[in-house]
């Protein structure tokens, strides 16, 4: 794979439709080549849950630095392109720290090595954006103390970026104690991170919400892509599999579930792309759009994965079938920035603020 992202000519933050299609296509081809189901299972079963070679390939394609500024060596693209790339990543359950990378590119664009993937960042949201409700990290002079819970990608990270109410800090891996967590979705590793020493302040709080929103947009894209692929897998099975002398997809019980799931997965896609667009354009209604994507995409992916297993029947109850990997991924994403009830609540709050 020697493809490299088409760099935008006119705008630094948005590609035209053709360039966007080329970007998506190049990512899709890389993933088809390097992230087949067997690869996902190999990576998932490895101790680290990380494949450095795949990561390097993503770096070479420019995906890791997708939203990093051009000045920092990134592609300088925006939420729309990130969302589309994540749809591809989500479709194949890519086990790679791309969401962390996107958030880090917003919070810490100048940290060396992040754009090309030679160093990996994990991000701990603590304080008002702590979606776990369980972290107790505080600033004590120039030192951070306490533990950040459920930090994605922390065990493989070279640097932990802490987004707190006191500002953004960077801490080297060697200065923290990382406790990898036994996670239900082995394609998305997490760890608790305990701080006990000096932290480098790399910014104020002004970018934290934008970074979190970008993370949600990336996750929403991943979920939409995952939902669509799970539905494709299910529809293909329902077309091939025969019972009672007929393809099971010819039975209304299956056909009608599929129709309902199409509505879910297409709605998720619309929500994810609209949130990306509104974040890119900084519209006045962007908060609502992001909240909507946060719960609509999470719920859609969980539902498509769940009903998709049911539609398969026994075969999807086996470890060898990929269906449960989608359900696991859907469940981990559904907690990642707070659950759907929280985001429905946030959605109403955003709508009230608009009115």
């Amino acid at each position, binding site marked *: 794979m020697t493809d490299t992202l088409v760099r935008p000519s006119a705008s630094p933050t948005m590609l035209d*439709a053709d360039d966007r299609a080329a970007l998506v296509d190049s990512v899709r081809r890389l993933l088809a080549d390097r992230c087949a189901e067997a690869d996902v299972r190999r990576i998932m079963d490895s101790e680290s849950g990380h494949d450095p070679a795949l990561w390097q390939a993503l770096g070479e394609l420019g995906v890791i630095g997708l939203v990093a500024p051009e000045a920092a060596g990134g592609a300088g693209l925006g939420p729309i392109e990130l969302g589309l790339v994540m749809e591809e990543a989500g479709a194949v359950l890519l086990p790679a720290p791309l969401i962390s990378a996107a958030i880090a590119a917003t919070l810490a664009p100048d940290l060396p090595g992040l754009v090309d993937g030679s160093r990996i960042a994990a991000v701990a949201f603590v304080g008002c954006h702590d979606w776990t409700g369980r972290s107790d990290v505080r600033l004590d002079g120039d030192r951070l103390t306490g533990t950040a819970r459920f930090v994605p990608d922390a065990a493989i990270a070279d640097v932990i970026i802490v987004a707190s109410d006191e500002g953004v800090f960077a801490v080297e891996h060697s200065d923290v104690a990382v406790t990898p967590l036994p996670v239900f979705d082995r394609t998305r590793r997490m760890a608790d991170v305990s701080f006990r020493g000096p932290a480098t302040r790399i910014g104020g709080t002004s970018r934290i919400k934008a970074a979190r929103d970008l993370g949600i947009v990336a996750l929403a894209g991943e979920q939409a892509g995952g939902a669509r692929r799970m539905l494709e897998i299910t*529809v293909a099975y*329902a*077309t091939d599999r025969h019972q009672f002398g*007929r*393809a099971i*997809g*010819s*039975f*209304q019980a*299956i*056909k*009608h579930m*599929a*129709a*309902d799931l*199409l*509505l879910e997965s*297409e*709605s998720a*896609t*619309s*929500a994810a*792309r*609209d949130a990306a667009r509104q974040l890119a354009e900084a519209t006045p209604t962007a908060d609502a759009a992001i909240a*909507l994507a946060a*719960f*609509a995409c999470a719920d859609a992916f969980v539902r498509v994965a769940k009903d998709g297993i049911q539609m398969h029947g026994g075969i999807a109850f086996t470890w060898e079938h990929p269906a449960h990997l989608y359900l696991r991924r859907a469940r981990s994403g559904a907690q990642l920035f707070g659950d759907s*009830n929280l985001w*429905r*609540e946030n*959605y*109403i709050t955003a*709508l*009230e603020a608009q*009115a």
Partner: protein
Amino acid sequence: MSMTDEQLQAEIEAWLAANWKGVPAHTESFGRDPRSEWLAKVRDAGWAVPRWSAEWQGRGLSNDQAKIVERAFAKVGAPGAGQDRSNLWANTALAHATESFKRTIVPQLLAGEVGMCLLYSEPGAGSDLAAVRTRADKVDGGWRVTGQKVWTSGARVADYGMLIARTDWDVPKHRGISFFFLPMKQEGVEVRPLRQITDEAHFNEVFIDNAFIPEENLLGPLNGGWGVLQTALAYERSVMGDAARGPRSGAGGPKGDDALLGLAREAGRLGDPVVRQDVAQVIAWRVLNKLNTARAKAELAQGTSSPIMSLGKLAMSRILHEEARVRTMLLGPESLLEGPDHPRAEDANFLTLNAYFTSIGGGTDQIQRNIIGERVLGLPKEPEVDRTIPFREVRAG
């Protein structure tokens, strides 16, 4: 006809400036159009069907130029332009009517000079239009028709009904149907209003007893009516779009996607976390449906066929039923009431019942899921037990 866009734009604007002075509102969707005088003028000027040839009172414009016409009319609020895309009746007649009949009827349809109605559904054949049992028997100079139709809008004021009737009983059901323009104003056609569960009567039953159809009113080939119906249904879908109506009362509170939010606030329920969850979900579905539609349109405009377009009706059905539930929850005991003195209750109760207009009318949700499953997702059809046997032998009703 190689006018530039600018020239075209200038010509329309000048024409509108000279002619457009407003018309009475058109309240009944299907009856004779009170704006006929204006519509005739639009037709005669070639704006009614700009994509059609001059032979049919069009201008042979490209789609892009026709849109310029439509936009100019829309800008001043004038009706009647672009019927080459929107007039179900005229399009069907132009495509399928006999030469003699369409020469007469198409111009009249473009000017709304004749009222029209649809005579497809029957009491015994709701979702299954091909099971039509109304019979048309050949007689000298035409056909004699006997049967019953339901769910007909505008039948009371219609001059013609687009009718499907069975003309051959000894072939499989799709192959013995013919398509007619039935003259409505004759003995043998009786229209009775149909009282809906909402206690309104937007629809009628039509009882047809030995009514006459002249030879020239046959559309398409004899026994080829199923094909004509398919194109007519396609037009209808594009014309009618989302047929879901809003709240009945004019005073029933805030409008728009987040009307529910306003209602919840009015009702003093916005502090209740359970209410907030349910209100958020319904608003979300409404917004998602709009986003889906916008995405489908954008994809269609780019020439990509979009799977999403067919989802709107199913989505709307869920939205309407669920919004009715949430409105009821917000109102509590107030939802027990109805009538003009209780507009919020009236809205909630009307919506509860009228949601079936969307979830049943124009093909039930169940039929819609079949269509999505088969035509969009490509899932195999069910075995059809009645597709190959003579209609006489099909059990129906």
